[in-house]
């Protein structure tokens, strides 16, 4: 090659023309792939906003569902039901997940730590419908009825692995000098963790919990045989309750035009909440990154 280049560098220039064509074609194709995936998102968003916002009314937030065949009504009970389920799920998933994450990042070592990490990944990979079956056999069968409690437990179990992993990750990102500083001041390990390390990672941990909530808020499968569904208000924690995702499912597969309209409205509300949470969480983390760099 060096000889050729010495004689006439232009004529034998590498890369040869056919390589250049392949280059342009393949690179364009990859760009089109990216464009395709992003346009799917824009399409989904556009379609839901168009169809959902049109079907949305004040009644949606304040009224109970009406029997099939009648028009009107809303999903106030499903909105409150979803909120209650998420509250219960956080009460179960956040403490166990966050404390488990603290264990892995600050105390854990050896085979037990490995086992916890491995089981967490395993639990994270369990299909959500299997979690639903599990909670059904655990709570619904002994109680002999569906309940908000069972639904909340199912979502809570789904929150644990992600809460644990995000907490673990953000705690590990805290520089070791902070740990050493705390210990050098005479604080015990636990004091250092509680007063220095966790506050330093707090923003990340909170962001992780927000994303986690956004994820389980849309889960339908684990609620089908735990929280079940309800046409009316569900008081307390012991009765079956409606929730937005399950209502969307039931309305979407129904034959009624008006229920389809309501499903779009509910989908729009649910997706807006999930996307807003994702965007806020993203801004929180990126804001944190840029300040820590300066």
């Amino acid at each position, binding site marked *: 090659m060096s000889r050729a280049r010495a004689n006439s560098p232009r004529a034998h220039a*590498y*890369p040869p023309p056919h*390589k250049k064509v*392949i*280059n342009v074609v*393949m*690179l364009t*194709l990859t760009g*089109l*792939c*990216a464009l*395709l*995936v992003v346009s*799917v998102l824009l399409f*989904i968003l556009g379609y*839901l906003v168009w169809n959902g916002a049109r079907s949305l009314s004040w009644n949606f937030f304040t009224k109970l569902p009406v029997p099939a065949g009648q028009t009107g009504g809303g999903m106030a009970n499903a909105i409150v039901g979803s909120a209650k389920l998420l509250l219960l799920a956080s009460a179960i998933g956040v*403490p*166990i997940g*966050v*404390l488990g994450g*603290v*264990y892995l990042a600050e*105390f854990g070592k050896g085979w*037990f730590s490995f086992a916890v990490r491995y*089981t967490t*990944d*395993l*639990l994270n*990979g*369990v*299909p959500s*419908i*299997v*979690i639903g*079956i*599990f909670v059904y056999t*655990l709570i619904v069968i002994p109680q002999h009825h569906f309940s908000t409690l069972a639904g909340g437990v199912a979502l809570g179990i789904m929150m644990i*692995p992600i809460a644990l992993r995000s907490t673990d990750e953000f705690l590990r990102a805290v520089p070791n000098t902070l740990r050493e500083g705390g210990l050098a001041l*005479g604080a*015990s390990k*636990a004091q250092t963790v509680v007063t*220095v390390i966790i*506050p330093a990672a707090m923003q990340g941990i909170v962001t992780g919990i927000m994303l986690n909530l956004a994820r389980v808020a*849309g*889960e*339908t*499968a684990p609620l*089908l*045989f735990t929280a079940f569904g309800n046409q009316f208000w569900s008081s307390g924690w012991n009765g079956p309750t409606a929730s937005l*995702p399950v209502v*969307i499912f039931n309305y*979407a*597969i129904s034959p009624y035009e008006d229920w389809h309209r309501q*499903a779009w409205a509910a*989908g729009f509300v*649910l*997706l807006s909440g999930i*996307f807003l949470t*994702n965007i806020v969480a*993203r801004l929180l983390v990126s804001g944190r990154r840029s300040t820590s760099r300066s």
Partner: protein
Amino acid sequence: MASTATTPPAPSSAQDAPEKLSLLEKFKKGDEAAFLITFASALTIILITCLLVQRLWADSALSRHAFGWHFLASSDWDPVNDQYGALPFIYGTVLTAFLALIIAVPVGMGAAIFLAELAPRKLSNVLTFMIELLAAVPSVIYGLLGIFVLLPILRDRIVPVLQGVFGFLPIFKGAFYGVSYFSAACVLAIMIVPFIVSISREVLLAVPQSQREAMMALGATKWDVTWKSVVPYAQRGMAGSIFLALARALGETMAVTMVIGNVPSITASLLSPGYTIAAVIANEFTEATGDLYVNALIELALVLFAVTMIINALARLLMLGMKSQETAH
């Protein structure tokens, strides 16, 4: 830092007689308590997982004893006569998941290569965030869009063309009503693409710059550098992302239930309605009467759990080498 000032100073007795601390003193320092509390949480996770396996195993006992391994090989699903065979559901689950991979992998890989190698970093970050938002869309909303948007498009536009060109193939034979393996695979493909893109992009970005520069210096084109130097280096991680996507596709419930048609049959045509494991559980579990029926459905959940567990383990094994590289620097 101000918060450290409020903590009481640690007792100095620890230095005088380290091994003679009373339990109470140990507790005051907080280390033991903190260890115990966090340890208990970590242990809870292991216990929950063990309990999950135990419940699935115990509550499918009737069906396991009645049918044995034959359960996996029989295609007879007949609740009226209490005969249960899982084959149509296993077939549907595997078929839709692999079909989804065939659609999603090339697109996802292409998009990941574009985002990691070609796009300016800022544009890449914005696009990646948008693609990751796709992963945040709940499955029931994919199902909703599937029923009312994708099925009509497939029925009126895409499938007639497919049948016109490939109609002689057995996989495209038969009447098409909308709900089918093919529709389910399309929805699944859209759902798993974000996972392939975001993980593969991370893996590609982690490839050392020298790997690119070495080949660039030889005068290779951008595509040659990417395809022959960067992608082989990232192979394992990218394969890992495919396995993770596969595990998700196998366990996906709502969107598939809404577009697959829910007919327990085994047909070669991708255009006929079918059923998956997750879908049959979602549809029939609350209506199942009789212990054997419920047990058979729980055994299906057990099968699904075992399969996704194996696929996830493979994915982790593939990504293990990659992780250690990441933590090294």
